[in-house]
């Protein structure tokens, strides 16, 4: 039997808990940059509550979208790829039908993940919607790295920490199921999600009750290496937010958060969206575009796959 070898690809998931932080804008902009760099990138609109990347990229409406895939009208993910006006970039449009109002069934989610990993592409960008539903968390954890987008506002920062806590709880549950201590993880991850228990305390309790499990779960958290972009920065203090948050996450969530970039606020972003023009094309020398290009450069470095870039937290 002839086997086609699929080259290793990079998968990035962009999420973060709160709506309005600019995830779709950054997903589209990064996808355009990555498409130009890698030559074969697929952007997937996995915002199951409100897909709109086709609008951002000015891709004409088509019938082929994720809803068709989930309804088995179109069995292969490859068959719902849509061309875009941008070199090296294709789009999988999010579904707008009622199915996306409800949680995605586990089997359908696995089908999507399986086929996503088999897509012939150099890079895949998943634009996730807001919120911390299990499906959103699972797709975010799939990313290498999953990229959080936060704005310098208390609500956005708070939601980001909640999202990270939820990711950590999800990872602990999965490991607990594997090591057959699911009852314990279920109890403690519930406390974690409510915020009444810190991750550090959670791991200590796990270690007390199940000897030798603490280091295993700590290793599980260490293997989770999300990244962070601060968007819409308006002041000098906003530019310090990213490294500071990385330090907080390292200290209190026991997770290595890679700080990627701070994107300055630019009024022209609003107008470029209104005109359906990619900002990175309209204003290539702007602070926003330069920052996005730097992120694309970092993400496509060979060592970036494993997320080895150390976070520059509170050190000079």
């Amino acid at each position, binding site marked *: 039997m002839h086997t086609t070898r699929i080259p290793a690809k990079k998968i990035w998931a962009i999420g973060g808990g709160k709506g309005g932080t600019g995830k779709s804008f950054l997903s589209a902009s990064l996808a355009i940059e990555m498409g130009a760099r890698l030559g074969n990138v697929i952007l997937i609109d996995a915002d199951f509550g409100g897909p709109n990347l086709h609008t951002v990229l000015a891709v004409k409406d088509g019938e082929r979208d994720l809803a068709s895939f989930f309804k088995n009208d179109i069995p292969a993910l490859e068959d719902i790829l849509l061309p875009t006006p941008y070199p090296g970039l294709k789009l999988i449009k999010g579904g707008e039908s009622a199915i996306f109002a409800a949680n995605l069934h586990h089997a359908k989610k696995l089908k999507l993940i399986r086929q996503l990993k088999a897509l012939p592409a150099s890079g895949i960008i998943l634009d996730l919607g807001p919120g911390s539903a299990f499906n959103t968390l699972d797709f975010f954890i799939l990313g290498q790295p999953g990229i959080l987008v936060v704005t310098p506002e208390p609500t956005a*920062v708070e939601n980001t920490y909640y999202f990270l806590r939820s990711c950590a709880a999800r990872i602990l549950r999965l490991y607990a199921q594997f090591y057959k201590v699911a009852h314990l993880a279920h109890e403690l991850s519930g406390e974690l999600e409510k915020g009444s228990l810190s991750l550090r305390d959670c791991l200590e309790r796990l270690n007390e009750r199940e000897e030798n499990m603490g280091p295993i779960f700590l290793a599980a958290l260490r293997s989770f290496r999300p990244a962070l972009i601060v968007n819409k920065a308006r002041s000098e203090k906003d530019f*310090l*937010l990213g490294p500071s948050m990385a*330090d907080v996450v390292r200290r209190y969530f026991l997770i290595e958060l890679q700080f990627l970039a*701070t994107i300055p606020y630019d009024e022209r972003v609003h107008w470029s969206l209104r005109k359906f023009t990619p900002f990175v094309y309209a204003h290539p020398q702007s602070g926003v575009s*330069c920052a996005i290009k730097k992120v694309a450069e970092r993400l496509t470095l060979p060592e970036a796959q494993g997320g080895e870039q150390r976070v520059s937290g509170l050190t000079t």
Partner: protein
Amino acid sequence: MDFYDLLNLPLDASPEEVERAYVRALATYHGEALASYGALSKEERDILLERIEAAFQTLSDPSRRKAYDVQVLPFRPEHGMKAYFRKSTAKLEIEDASEKKSVWGKIKSFLLPKSQNNAQKIRVAGRVDESGQNVAEDYYKGEYFKLIRENRGLSRKEIAQATGLSEDMIRAVEEGNTSSAPQGKELSSILRLYAQALGLRGGPRH
């Protein structure tokens, strides 16, 4: 977690680095800090702020730091590595040799007083962030001095007594009130007095 880990400092951190890390840590973890909003409980925050203060008081005092290092360094893995490399002193000396100054560098050193050079180094030392923008980490501002003052439980009155400034002036400087606070060189002088009252080494350049 020792004080070096707490402030994310290397073992050979300079006094300026210690000071900058201290202010940065307070800016990250004080009660109204955005970066740590929703991440830790009040109890955790209070404990951490106490530790940050203790870390600064210890690491900024040469004799206290020396005594502290005796307790802590033997347990640090990089300390062991450093001792090993010390054996190959010849290569180490070559690598550690300071860069030769250019002609302009020598002229600059001659013309500009050393104290100003140091202040400038502290003031403009910052980072080029991932977007390529220079982020000046200027912590010698009234708002950060206020964090330190409040963390130590000091009142404006006490700072006023220590500096000879009025409480109103201190409030204006802390709040960055441009209508009532002085600007330019006068502001720099006030900030320097305030910094000295807080036991900080650096300060804004004129």
